């Protein structure tokens, strides 16, 4: 642990040095436009495998979604679903039977034609007891899958789910061929506009255009996805022109410096990552709503956003993304007021505050937010001890064993407010009102009814002060000025290369 802290501190010192020095040195002499036939995209994390149905890592989806693998329907940059492998989906009036017509003339990268059997295979593989799919809820309502002919799939649900069709747009519902699915982790073969060439582990994945692609031909023939984890190294690679774009840099403090570079363009967008101070609602003193409210009132979210993300996060007041139509702006629901917070804490029986631990996972948003939050809570007498933990420990102790007081984490899955209704979830929160609202989001037959249920859920968790809702994690895209088609927001983690082109 000690070593890790030293390393982080050393890196922070390094970053500071880098930024100061970069400011005094002349700006880059080279403005290479690069080869118009290729694009080098840089991303922070390397995926452990390339099969989106075998692990939850966002990095897998960043490379494969809508590039190597395709889904029946797919999210666009605005988070709306668009047809992909499904030419049409028609649903029965009761929403229980869905008839999917597949596009014709689609082949996998190894030449195997796509048929309805592949859809059946892919979904049954995801539903199997030994499946490694991290989003099995998508397939849970499925009763049966039939194939009347080679290009038609009929899915009959055993229980109604209003979000069933949208779930099919997730990378976890990618369509595989039975012939190649087993090796998808290391040699992915899909139907997408780009096909896998090589993976130099630790450095890059190399892709090339799929010339037999059924849809619009991508503009760029070759694509390289490089992995650069270190925030300073990301900035250096962009400044040196090694990356044509970085999908989301980890150094928000470098944005001003990157913006000053005429060859680069910076776009501040949003991910679906609600960053929260989670509190163990089942443990004293956090089981007292007044204590949770006091903590919420003691934290100045704008300041945390400024300190941790240079102000690029989007403030939220509930566990819901402003990208979604059902979003309610509840940022004003709790006012920053340390004096009132102290009073509330005294009412709850803690006139002198109390001691609590704050377990922080490794990402910098958590580490940085944690420092600011701890300082703010000290103002109302809550003595916070910060405990940095590795992801594995976080998942084991905080998430699984619920052995924690407070933690800071970003919940990156879209529309994940349903976690508040889960039994034994790590928040330790239980509310029948909320459970009912979540059930209604599933059973709703219309978009309006579904959105209304989502709004009820948002109001409930905000009123109960389950957690402190800080901000949506930003997506800071940095790219060469001539590159077009990068997604500004991440409704899902994806970088569809087929949409890129050089000016």
């Amino acid at each position, binding site marked *: 642990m000690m070593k890790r802290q030293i390393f982080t501190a050393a890196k922070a010192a390094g970053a500071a040095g880098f930024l100061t020095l970069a400011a005094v*040195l002349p700006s880059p002499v080279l403005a290479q436009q690069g080869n118009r036939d290729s694009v080098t995209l840089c991303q922070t994390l390397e995926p452990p495998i390339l099969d989106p149905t075998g692990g*939850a890592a966002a990095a897998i989806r960043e490379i494969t979604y809508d590039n190597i693998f395709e889904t029946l329907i797919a999210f666009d940059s605005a988070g709306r679903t668009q047809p992909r492998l499904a030419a049409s989906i028609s649903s029965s009036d009761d929403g229980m039977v869905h008839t999917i017509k597949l596009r014709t003339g689609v082949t996998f990268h190894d030449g195997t034609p796509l048929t309805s059997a592949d859809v059946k295979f892919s979904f049954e593989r995801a539903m199997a007891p030994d499946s490694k799919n991290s989003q099995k809820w998508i397939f849970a309502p499925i009763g049966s899958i039939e194939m009347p002919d080679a290009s038609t799939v009929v899915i009959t649900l055993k229980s109604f789910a209003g979000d069933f069709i949208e779930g099919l747009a997730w990378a976890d519902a990618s369509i595989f061929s039975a012939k190649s699915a087993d090796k998808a982790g290391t040699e992915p073969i899909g139907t997408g506009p780009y096909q896998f060439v090589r993976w130099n582990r630790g450095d890059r994945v190399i892709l090339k255009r799929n010339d037999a692609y059924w849809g619009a031909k991508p503009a760029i023939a070759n694509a390289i996805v490089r992995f650069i984890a270190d925030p300073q190294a990301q900035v250096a690679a962009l400044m040196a022109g090694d990356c044509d774009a970085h999908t989301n840099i980890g150094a928000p403090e470098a944005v001003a410096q990157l913006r000053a570079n005429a060859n680069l363009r910076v776009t501040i967008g949003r991910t679906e990552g609600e960053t929260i101070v989670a509190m163990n609602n089942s443990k004293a003193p956090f089981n007292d709503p007044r204590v949770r409210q006091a903590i919420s009132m003691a934290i100045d979210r704008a300041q945390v956003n400024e300190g941790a993300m240079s102000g690029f996060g989007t403030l939220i007041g509930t566990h819901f993304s402003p990208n979604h139509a059902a979003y309610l702006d509840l940022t004003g629901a709790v006012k920053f007021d340390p004096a009132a917070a102290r009073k509330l804490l005294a009412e709850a029986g803690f006139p002198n505050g109390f001691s609590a631990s704050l377990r922080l996972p490794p990402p910098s948003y958590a580490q940085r937010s944690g420092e600011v939050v701890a300082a703010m809570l000290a103002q109302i007498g809550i003595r916070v001890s910060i405990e940095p933990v590795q992801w594995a420990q976080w*998942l084991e102790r905080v998430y699984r064993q619920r052995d924690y007081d407070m933690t800071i984490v970003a919940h990156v899955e879209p529309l994940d407010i349903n976690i508040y209704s889960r039994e034994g979830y790590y928040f330790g929160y239980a509310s029948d009102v909320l459970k009912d609202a979540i059930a209604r989001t599933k059973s709703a037959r219309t978009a309006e009814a579904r959105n209304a249920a989502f709004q009820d859920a948002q109001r409930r968790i905000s009123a109960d002060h389950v957690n402190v809702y800080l901000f949506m994690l930003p997506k800071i895209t940095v790219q060469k000025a001539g590159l077009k088609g990068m997604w500004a927001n991440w409704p899902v983690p994806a970088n569809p290369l087929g949409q890129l082109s050089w000016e």
Partner: protein
Amino acid sequence: MIGFLVRRALTLLATLMVAAIIIFTVTEILPGDPAAVMLGMTATPETIAALRTDLGLDAPPMQRFFQWIFGFLTGDLGISYAYRVPVAGLIAERLPVTLPLALLAITMASLLGISLGAIAASRANGLVDAGIMAGAQVGLAVPNFWFGILLVLLFSITLGWFPAGGFPGWQAGFFIGLKALLLPALALALPQGAVLARITRTAVLEALGEDFVRTARAKGLTRWQTLRRHVMRNAMVPVFTMLAMQFSFLVAGTIVIENVFALPGLGRLMFQAIGGHDIITVKSLVMVFAGAVILINAIVDLTYGLIDPRLRLARGVSR
């Protein structure tokens, strides 16, 4: 001599075994489940259990320990929990980056350190000496990753001569590969070179004070001839010891430098494996690092005799 070698080999094996037990125990105690890390927050307990079975995490610790040790002896290091490919393959992929990087760094450090140290000693207390020693002091004080960042700023961003990081692979061409390793090797070499310069200077100064130096000069050898033929050879024993110790630091240094330069080497693999709780890879990597350090030290012990015949003689006498 044979007996000596056998004894050395046995000590080596025993050290490695102790290292293996410590590494296994420590990684075993660490809380956390690799399967849970892979599958994230939304996975159901059944899905995690399925992956655990797949990864062989169900087996009792003792069984896994012996599987690991015997696997090690046969070159089978198991399957990485995160990457789901053989660990041996992962390490083999990364060696062609880390090994040349370490060799390049140690070569640069030796050339730089030993020559500058010798020059400083031969001009002891002069301006050149003061300059070199001041430089060495800076070299010692500057952490290698920060020096790496400075190199990137100058050579990659401002001048555009070198890539700012990454490794295109040896298949892209020898010189392209070498170019990618040059800056990180230099960043690694600087602090090492600084240490070597100081050690060399002290050792050379000490040797210069010996009687044989006066004799050599009296025989009519020039300053440089004396230095080359008599002084340097005597001074090399402590320098060589230091060089071997430096190697261990170099191994640790690659972990940091490979991250700064985004190089796909063993150090970065270690970093990623720890982050992903890929314990089986961490274990094998630590073992490889520990093994390398232990082996280098053994080789250095054996080669002392080559540099210094007196040590060879002493050993002969004691036997």
